[in-house]
């Protein structure tokens, strides 16, 4: 009796799995090779298919990666392109495969978001010479003197210049003479933010104390997605007398805003206009300004250049203060009173009178 039941169960399972397999067979026969599930063109129809590759934990960070999405959506509206967004798996081990598959399936241009693609994009670009690649935050030049290829364009930002202005704003607004900086991960890219911020603050007030902390060391990328630790670090700075903290910590920045909100102090957001994206009125109050990194502009301009056929390749496009590629947001109006001072520093940087350091 017992055995019969076991058998019939096994049989039922077998039949079930066969049916499932058959279904799979059917569906793959009926709609072969449907193109990637992109958004439908809204205005004019273009046959350009853009592949956008995020980095780990990318889409939905309300900051850097979502800024790239905004640029993509702008391009969709404007040109009616088709798009495919993909993210690597949690440990990022399939980044190369991801870019290759985008290229293989005919997506062109392929835009990689983040310096983490540095390791793989040169090889993939060489494998697919007919595909145009762009990389946000990744230079075309490799440190050993080679290039990532003639079909690769680096979309770079002068984060240190924008951060300089953030430092100026913080120093002008600080009552206590102590300000803070919370970095996500202690890597070269984030140190650019720190260097600019400290330089800007010292330019206004040479005696200012800048408390600099990083959430995680190089090699451990948890610092970009850990609001709890962001909050602890920022809380420590506020307790220690800082009244404005600037964060360059991706998703961990939320914790910095929470700490500011609880201690009645201020914070500076990063990458996107976080006053607009934070979506919580209590936290909105504490966001004095945000250091904008116009990834959206870079992405939509690159797609536009690709459609016009004017992508040069084998070079970098640098978004700095002179083209408003970086800057400070004014939403909330908290820095309106010091706007003239900020603009003064901005002009000095553009004119080359101030050279902002890129390393602390």
């Amino acid at each position, binding site marked *: 009796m017992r055995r019969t039941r*076991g058998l019939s169960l*096994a049989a039922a*399972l077998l039949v*079930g*799995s066969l049916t*499932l397999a058959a*279904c*799979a067979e059917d*569906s*793959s026969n009926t709609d072969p090779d*449907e193109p*990637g*599930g992109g958004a439908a063109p809204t205005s004019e129809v273009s046959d350009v298919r853009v592949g956008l590759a995020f980095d780990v934990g990318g889409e939905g960070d309300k900051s850097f990666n979502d800024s790239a999405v905004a640029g993509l959506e702008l391009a969709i509206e404007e040109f009616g392109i088709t798009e*495919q*967004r*993909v*993210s690597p*798996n*949690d*440990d*990022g*081990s*399939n980044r*190369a*495969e*991801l870019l*290759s*598959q985008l290229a*293989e*399936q005919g997506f062109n241009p392929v835009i990689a978001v983040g*310096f*983490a693609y*540095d*390791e793989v994009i040169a090889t993939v670009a060489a*494998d697919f010479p007919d595909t145009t690649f762009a990389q946000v*935050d*990744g230079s075309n030049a490799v*440190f050993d003197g080679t290039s990532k290829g003639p079909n690769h364009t680096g979309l770079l930002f002068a984060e240190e210049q924008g951060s300089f202005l953030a430092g100026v704003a913080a120093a002008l607004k600080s009552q206590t003479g102590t300000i803070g900086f919370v970095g996500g991960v*202690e*890597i*070269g*890219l984030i140190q650019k933010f720190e260097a600019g911020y400290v330089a800007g603050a010292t330019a206004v007030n040479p005696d200012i104390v800048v408390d600099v902390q990083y959430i995680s*060391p*190089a*090699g*451990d*990328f948890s610092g970009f997605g850990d609001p709890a630790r962001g909050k602890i670090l920022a809380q420590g700075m506020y307790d220690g007398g800082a009244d404005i903290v600037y964060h360059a910590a991706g998703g961990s920045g939320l914790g910095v805003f929470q700490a500011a909100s609880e201690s009645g102090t201020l914070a500076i957001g990063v990458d996107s206009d976080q006053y607009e994206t934070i979506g919580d009125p209590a936290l909105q109050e504490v966001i004095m300004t945000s250091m904008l990194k116009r990834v959206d502009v870079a992405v939509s301009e690159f797609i536009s250049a690709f459609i016009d056929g004017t992508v040069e390749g084998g070079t970098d496009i640098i978004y700095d203060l002179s083209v408003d590629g970086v800057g400070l947001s004014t939403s909330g109006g908290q820095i309106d009173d010091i706007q003239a001072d900020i603009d003064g520093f901005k002009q000095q940087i553009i004119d080359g009178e101030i050279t902002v350091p*890129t*390393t602390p």
Partner: protein
Amino acid sequence: MNVVRRVGLALLAPAIALVVAAIISAFVILAIGEDPLVALRELVNFGDNSASQMQAVAVILNRAIPLFLAGLAVSIGFRMGLFNIGVEGQYRLATIMAAWVGTAVVLPRPVQLLLIIVVAMAVGAIWAGIAGILKVTRGVSEVISTIMLNFIAIGLASYLLTGPFRGTPEGSLTVATEDLPESGRLPGLNGVMASLGLAEPRSELYGFLIPAIVVGVLVAILVKRTRFGFDLKASGLNPTAATASGVNARAMVVKAMLLSGALAGLIGLPDLVGDTYHYGTEFTSGLGFLGIAVALLGRNNPLGIAFGALLFGFLDRAALSLQFAGIPSQVVTIIQGTIVLAVVIANEVARRIAIRQAERTGANLPTARPAAGEQQATVVQ
């Protein structure tokens, strides 16, 4: 008859678990408004030409090799009732040390590769051995000490990477050690595949597949056919009885941790000698934790672990195809988690059924008792 039945039960349990996990996952996919059949199609769709099919196979295998080694490392601890959560830190530290030694000297290729492997295993073993020694001398739970050692290892690896072992100039965004010289690189297996008449995949199939298989066989022999393996299992199942029968339980703890750590040291090598040639900020992390899941899936049996690693590799490959079909890749993580849970539960149920049947027939308790890790796993889950 009894043997057939027992083997059948042992295989039936994971099979049912997989089906249950598939059904649960299907409901999850339905719940997020997607079609489970499309997901299934993407899971098994390897492309329509032999090159892309072989590419899919290479991607799965390249992912499965480190997972297999990670599963083996964890399983050695499990077999003796030790929960080595520190595999993560052990392989990260081992990989950076191996990468550094590999660039510091240039020897003939076989010697150089052997040196890299030995260094990696030694560093992994030493790091795990700390937890073993703490346990036998001070009674520190290896669960706590290995977790703590993970933080130290990752911090230490980060310090070494950005400090003395740094191979990239200041100011570059990603930091890595110097690339291994040609003699420290293990060629891929694409040439072998071509000579077998198979299409060559786009990516290189890791040459480390062969050492991994050898290690798997050696571990299987060690745990199943040697006195050491018996002592390991005996100490795990009943430490008191094992001690009474002459097994030095304290020495076994240290030995098990050393072996587990040595295997953990290998995890980063397939990538290191086969693909990246350096350890850097972008080096694949998290494999040690995935190894725990793979060991659970494989019931601490090397063959089972190989299957579990392949299953994870198979699901992982689909993470991309799913996105192209408009289904979020997180579905894969959900499926993996569901499978691990279902398998653990099914194994426990199967064990109880086996015990009850044995009791009913008046026979002795079944000899095929589950390994220690599963009992612990139910606690962990």
